[in-house]
């Protein structure tokens, strides 16, 4: 049974002082309902998540106590993606016809604070200064660049592209072009990654309404976008993940590789059929590795692609057309849904200044994060 997305809503990402994470979620939920010309009371269920802004289901007191099934989802960086997958499965099972996937968040400034004890790592790990996510990103791309002959030029080109795309997205946090030299000379955070290679924790909300594709016309006049595949996978033994005090000598495929393969299999198409993609860009290196892990190019080919502009809005495979995590920041609960939101916008042809040319038909989203999980969606119109 096909699942359709018939309503899209977003609260601008970034910093919104005086507005709680939940209020930003409510804003997004109302926008999604308005987009579909539907009422909250039409919904049979909701899956929602937030990492740092309280329980998602608290929003029913703002939206209305209609008795709907509301399940809170908590799954690290894949919280938004997992809410969407849960909604997808709820409809596919035949149990429900229509519902919402929603995520919102509001994080404190600076790097995510880590609790080494809660993560099963021992207090000593934090004491000595190794419980820091930027170190992991630095070490992972350091090795990758060594293995595949990628230079800092590639890191800079990703950042320049994503900030430039952000200026074309009214909902993005960063609205300024950052010139190449400014990226290349910004402060070294965790070698080889610099300040402007990283995204930051932020705030925002995103919601979407999903329904059985064969009943879409009953609910709305909006042209639906179809969710052809959803896959969430976690790390295998031997995968290089954050906060690993040791690593196996033999490496396994990343969770992204598993999730991507499963999603393409479900959808019955291949990477060459994708017209526009959203790939997790926690930092520049992540986007580079994810281009290959998701099957769009070979390992080591990325620098050439970036120099040729193949992942720019007018390139062969536009990546992170809304500015990605770099220009939007990363509110964990909402981030994975933002990616899907952007692809749906592109497939509807509503991308405005950042619209991918030639009416894209198939899109792809990929989220990756702690503690080593990946979520992939494939969409079509």
């Amino acid at each position, binding site marked *: 049974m096909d699942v359709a997305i018939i309503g899209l809503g977003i609260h601008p990402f970034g910093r919104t002082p005086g507005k709680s994470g939940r209020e930003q979620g409510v804003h997004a939920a109302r926008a999604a309902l308005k987009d579909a010309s539907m009422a909250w009371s039409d919904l049979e269920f909701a899956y929602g998540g937030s990492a740092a802004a309280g329980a998602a289901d608290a929003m029913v007191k703002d939206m209305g106590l209609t008795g709907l099934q509301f399940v809170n989802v908590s799954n690290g960086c894949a919280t938004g993606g997992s809410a969407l997958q849960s909604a997808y499965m709820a409809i596919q099972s035949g149990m429900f016809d229509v519902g919402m996937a929603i995520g919102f968040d509001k994080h404190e400034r600076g790097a995510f604070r880590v609790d080494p004890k809660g993560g099963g790592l021992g207090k000593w790990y*934090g004491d000595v200064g190794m419980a820091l996510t930027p170190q992991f990103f630095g*070490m992972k791309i350091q090795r990758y660049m060594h293995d595949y002959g990628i230079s800092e030029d590639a890191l800079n080109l990703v950042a320049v592209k994503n900030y430039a795309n952000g200026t074309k997205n009214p909902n993005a946090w960063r609205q300024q072009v950052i010139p190449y030299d400014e990226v290349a000379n910004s402060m070294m955070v965790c070698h080889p990654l610099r300040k402007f290679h990283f995204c930051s924790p932020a705030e925002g909300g995103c919601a979407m309404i999903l329904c059985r594709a064969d009943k879409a016309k009953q609910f709305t006049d909006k042209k639906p976008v179809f969710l052809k595949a959803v896959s969430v996978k976690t790390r295998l033994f031997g995968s290089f993940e954050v906060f690993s005090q040791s690593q196996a000598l033999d490496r396994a495929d990343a969770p992204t590789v598993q999730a991507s393969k499963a999603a393409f299999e479900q959808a019955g198409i291949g990477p060459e059929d994708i017209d526009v993609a959203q790939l997790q860009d926690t930092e520049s290196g992540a986007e580079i590795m994810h281009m290959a892990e998701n099957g769009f190019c070979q390992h080591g080919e990325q620098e050439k692609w970036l120099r040729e502009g193949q992942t720019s809005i007018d390139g062969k495979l536009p990546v992170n057309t809304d500015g990605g995590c770099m220009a939007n920041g990363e509110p964990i609960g909402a981030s994975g849904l933002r990616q899907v939101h952007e692809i749906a916008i592109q497939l509807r042809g509503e991308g405005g200044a950042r619209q991918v040319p030639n009416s894209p038909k198939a899109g792809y989203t990929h989220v990756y994060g702690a503690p080593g999980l990946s979520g992939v969606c494939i969409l079509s119109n």
Partner: protein
Amino acid sequence: MAEQTSTPNYGYENTVPIAEGLFTWPSNDPRLLGSQCQDCGVVTFPVQSGCPACSSTNVETIELEREGTLWTWTIQGFYPQRPPYDGPETPENFKPFGVGYIELPGQVRVQSRIKTEDVSKLRIGMSMKLLVEQYIERDGKQVMSYFFQPSDEL
């Protein structure tokens, strides 16, 4: 460095390891402690109660190699959030420090702080050696932690 002897009982009274069971201590020749699965051979650091590769609980504590090569690295460029950080410096006198994974031949890659005079010399593949030394002072005791140091700086 002193000749290796049996477990020393002099000169270590005022020291405590940063965590019990992380490395042999007190010792003139300390080693990191890991677990080796008796069913599939996989080694982990630190010690854990089961094997992450095959789920077996038939694991034994072993002493890890003290020399290896740098598999990847980075430089922590900013003063980490305190807590959880508990380093000896203040934000004012903080100096960027190295962190990496050291591949111990035939065993496992371990994550470690890197002690070096010059972080700009860090390279993948360089040979590294284990070192246990004072990290901070706490309650009047020297808190000992492990580091790896480029072999050519020893």
